[in-house]
């Protein structure tokens, strides 16, 4: 917005210049296509992939894994987050597990998950859920605990029950944090699904990247990366749209604070 229409035009021009430069360098120096394909080849691969309907099926599989993993991870993360936030006892006993799990790079569990759940879609859903789990749980806890003391006192002064304080104050108050967590969980679920497919799968975009790697189809891999970028944007857009609807009242400072909390605590995936 700040740079106006000229800025927009310059941006688009810059992208084209970049692509042209890439194309020119590859052609001028005769870089082999299995090292770095020119953008024209990438576009061609993208077109062929869609024309032969090869990509569509794999996109469907990866998306399904991502969504199911996101849903599973989110439900578990939210439930556990609520339990931890509301009960000091639960927090006390679960704390060692949480700390260990937090420090562990969740993608390192992918090979085990494949052994346990096989090459089918289930293992990828589990991998996606594992990776998506943590940022949402951390944010749910932080959000539920963020209720301002005056507001809690107001509820208490009205003789509100524990349950009413949770339902009427803590939960809506935590929504900005929870949505910030969901945004990250969505993207993390995609990462989890792809990593799961890398390790062992019969279909999906991650598996496709692996098989193209074996056949030195680098242009094909680039085309998949483009698709993954687009999917990431789409998934993020879904959550952001939902957030804008639900959190119409949020001044977004909270969301920013919550995102920071995730960056600090839930960064390891």
């Amino acid at each position, binding site marked *: 917005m700040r740079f106006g229409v000229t800025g927009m035009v310059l941006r688009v021009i810059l992208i084209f210049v970049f692509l042209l430069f890439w194309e020119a360098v590859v052609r001028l120096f005769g870089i082999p296509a299995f090292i770095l394909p020119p953008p024209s080849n990438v576009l061609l691969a993208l077109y062929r992939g869609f024309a032969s309907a090869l990509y569509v099926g794999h996109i469907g599989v990866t998306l399904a894994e991502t969504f199911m993993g996101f849903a599973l991870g989110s439900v578990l993360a939210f439930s556990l987050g609520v339990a931890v936030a509301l009960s000091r006892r639960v927090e006390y006993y679960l704390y060692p597990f949480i700390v260990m799990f937090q420090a562990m790079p969740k993608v390192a569990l992918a090979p085990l998950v494949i052994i346990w759940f096989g090459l089918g879609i289930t293992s990828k859903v589990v991998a996606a859920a594992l990776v998506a789990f943590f940022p949402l749980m951390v944010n749910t806890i932080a959000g539920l605990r963020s209720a301002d003391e005056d507001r809690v*006192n107001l509820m208490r*002064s009205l*003789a509100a029950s524990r349950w009413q304080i949770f339902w009427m104050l803590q939960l809506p108050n935590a929504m900005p944090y929870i949505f910030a967590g969901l945004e990250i969980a969505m993207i993390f679920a995609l990462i989890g699904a792809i990593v799961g497919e890398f390790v062992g799968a019969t279909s999906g975009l991650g598996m496709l990247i692996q098989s193209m790697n074996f056949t030195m189809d680098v242009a094909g891999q680039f085309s998949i990366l483009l698709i993954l970028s687009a999917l990431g944007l789409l998934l993020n857009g879904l959550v952001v749209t939902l957030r804008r609807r639900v959190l119409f009242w949020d001044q977004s400072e909270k969301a920013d604070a919550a995102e920071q909390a995730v960056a600090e605590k839930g960064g390891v995936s």
Partner: protein
Amino acid sequence: MPQRSCAIGEGLAILQAGLRTVAPAEISTAARDVINVKRLSKQYGGGAEPILALKDIDFAIPEGEFLSIVGPSGCGKSTLLKILAGLMPASGGEALLNGTPIGGPRRDIGVVFQSPVLFPWRSVLNNVLLPADVQRLGRTVMEKRAYDLLRLVHLNGFERRYPWELSGGMQQRVALVRALIHDPALLLMDEPFGALDAMTREQMNVELQRLWMERKKTVVFITHSTAEAVFLGDRVMVMTPRPGQVGDIFRVDLPRPRGLEVMNTEKFGGYVRRIREVLNAGGGLE
């Protein structure tokens, strides 16, 4: 226990004598006491050196009275309010509301805090209806009440708006209406206009007086402004710090409705001056 409001002018002497029982009490017989506080004390932290926040607080408020409590910060007036609201237990003595001890939060108390404490996800109407929702009072009846009360504070037309769309003064008026929606026996106000600018504050004082005259609630109004305390109160209780004690209680004999111009009168100035003297004697004003 009969209330002991000291005759004006004797306050200082009585305070210095350390006695507060000899004042010729105007014993209220017409109205029963809504609040009865007896030898109330509060100390924070156990251990070797506990801090005494309140010491031997004694007062009573007859039904329908507006009691202002004024004192410097640290005199324990907010602690007193928290105890009256049932948000905090006392360490000694007792506080009775309509004859029963205040053992915890009660449904028949309305509280207005220093900040409006509105929920941004609730519309103005739904913020006002929060006590009704918590106490499961019928929505239909309460909604009508909410509309009436909002009209009374000139907020009709704002029912569907959200708190962030309102000015600070408007937000505090919503908080005030919210505290009245469930028709509490007692309204507790903890420096409710402290965060507002001077002009809005005066305007809010006038509105609060009007609302009070219309609804005749028993009110405890905490402030650190002597002028505000005198302007609003039927009586003014002056508290002195370290430990928080009742310095004196004055009856304010100014006819209602009081307009802002009353603040310029000799009589008003006299009350303010006397309150200052008690505060000075108590070491409240350095």
